[in-house]
């Protein structure tokens, strides 16, 4: 119990240890998604294939 309380306190005070990785991961995933996004016009040519 004591351990969890201390861990909670650590998390509250040093957010960079968990918040930054979370943000970086989400940003990375979003960047990958955006960079591999199909052109907005692509669907219109699908009827040709």
């Amino acid at each position, binding site marked *: 119990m004591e351990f969890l309380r*201390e*861990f909670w306190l*650590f*998390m509250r005070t*040093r957010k960079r*240890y*968990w918040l930054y*990785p*979370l943000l970086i*991961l*989400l940003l990375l*995933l*979003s960047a*990958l*998604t*955006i*960079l*591999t*996004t*199909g*052109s*907005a*016009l*692509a*669907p*219109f*040519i*699908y*009827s*040709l*294939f």
Partner: protein
Amino acid sequence: MKKRIWLFKGLALLLPLLALALAEGLLRLFGYGHDYRLFVDDPQRKGYLIMNPHASERYFTETENATVGNFEPFRQKKSEGTFRIFVLGESTTIGYPYFHNGSFHRWLHYRLLHTFPGRNFEIINLSLTAVNSYTVFGFGKQLIEYEPDAVLIYTGHNEYYGAMGVGSTSSLGGHPALVRLVLKLREFRLMQLLNRTLAGVRKIASGGTVDLRENLMKRMAADQQIPYGSDTYQTGIDQFKTNLNDLCQLFSERRIPVLISNLVSNEKDLKPFISAPGTTEKSAQYQYSLANQAYTSGHFREAKQRFSRAKELDLLRFRAPEAINQVIRALAAHYPNVTEVDAKAVFERNSPNGILGKETLLEHVHPNLYGYALLSDAFYEALKKKRLIAADWKNEISFDQVRKQMPITPVDSLKGVFEMMILKEGWPFNERMPPEEKRAKTVEEQLAGALVVKQISWRDAMDQLLAHYQKVNNPQGALRVTEALSLEYPYEPGFYEQAGKLSLNLNQHEQAVWYLKKAFQLEETFSTAQSLFITLLKLDRPDEALVYLRYAAAHNETKFSLNELQTFVEQLVAVKNRYLTDTTNVLMSNQLAAGYLKFANTAGAAKYVAKSLRTDPRNAVALQLKSQLQAIKNESE
């Protein structure tokens, strides 16, 4: 204390991953998103698998644009003696604009079924319109565990503008490793959520304005012209090479035979979509004009070269460059279990002066029905050459035969015609639709029209066409539709039985036996067994008839005993086996004729009377049997 701090730091760093895992778990628990694996259980048929309707969503940024393919069921556990083929590729591979039995794999299926009547074939087409080598690779690598006996591939036209193509993907399109990573990540529901959120944001940011299709197309063309030899051009080829090479390597390691066809494009009857201006060597339009001049003057070799050059220089890369065919050739040379199917050569042999055009192709890349038959022929011949199914192809059916017999209905071919009219009316073809003829439309035209605009399904169209043919007493037409349905739904015994009975009415006994046997294989019924033994006795195949007669006698649904007939046929088989060792024995041929006559099998009786009279033209018993036969014939007339 210091130790504890380090522990907290480590745990804190792990926490985001745990949070993501938790979010993923919750999304799955509440049924958000889709499972993208290639096959799912067939809801209609226990023990069978079908292609997952969501499998393609992984390759499309906007999942609502994801194309859907065929749902061809196959057994979860491959039965002994079954030859299982998977087909991978794009719109040509799935038979656009005909689909269904117009597709090359159905032509091939039909021909293989008739070449090897005793074998079971499962040909599962996993192709989709608008996809390219990323999808072929993604689907292909999942096939290993499904015991393929061969994999057929026809792909390469969509490397630039298809889903994840270099011309249609924002920035990372040309980096296969990154694209594959993103495709892998899309399996996670969290990524699917992120994808949808970003799509929603894009929609809001664009203000939800709807642009006209025509304008969008023109803008796209201006944005995405890909000059011959440019970086983007090369990236497309490299992407194709990476994906196909990795797939061939994977299949090679498992010793799975792969047959890849080279690609065909319209050379002669399609002017370049977009050309560099002027009269330089780099102008596609200029090359095309010179090609036409050479063609008109009868300089076909020069014309062929210039038509091909015009295609290569076309800035709108809807037709695969020749470099793609070179990649295919190199793969076949590198991997021993990979075979190049030279469809291009087959098309050239069947085109005037060896130049591909409207004789085999509908527009830029899609074959017409004759073209699809040719494509299937190229694969059929390659399978034969590789002796993959059997060493001996003694019952082979010719290309002309398959063209004559293939159950393509008028609705199927008209659907292709109408679909083309609509396609060519728009960009980038911009061809005027021919004026509508002022006459009442035939039933076939009405059904094909309704099919094109998706008012009815193919199944409904076939059902209505069958009803129409039955109403107007067109048994040939009804048979063709029923055959078409049996090819589309190979696990429904009713269509085989119906095709068998319709064949019987048309006195096509061999064909009737083929269909009835298929029906009996799927579902043993008294009615099918009865039709089978009667027809087989008519065809003088008593040993085969006996199998079905025994079944019919054991499951007799009539008030007449079949036991006497069974005993007779057993004797007949014995006499016939003896007769086959001495075919000049008139006593035995008369015995066989009399036996058949006893059960009013005039066809069987006549055959043996003729044999007796050939050996002994004055044989009294044979002459008497002949007059009996004549009397029966006169009576029936």
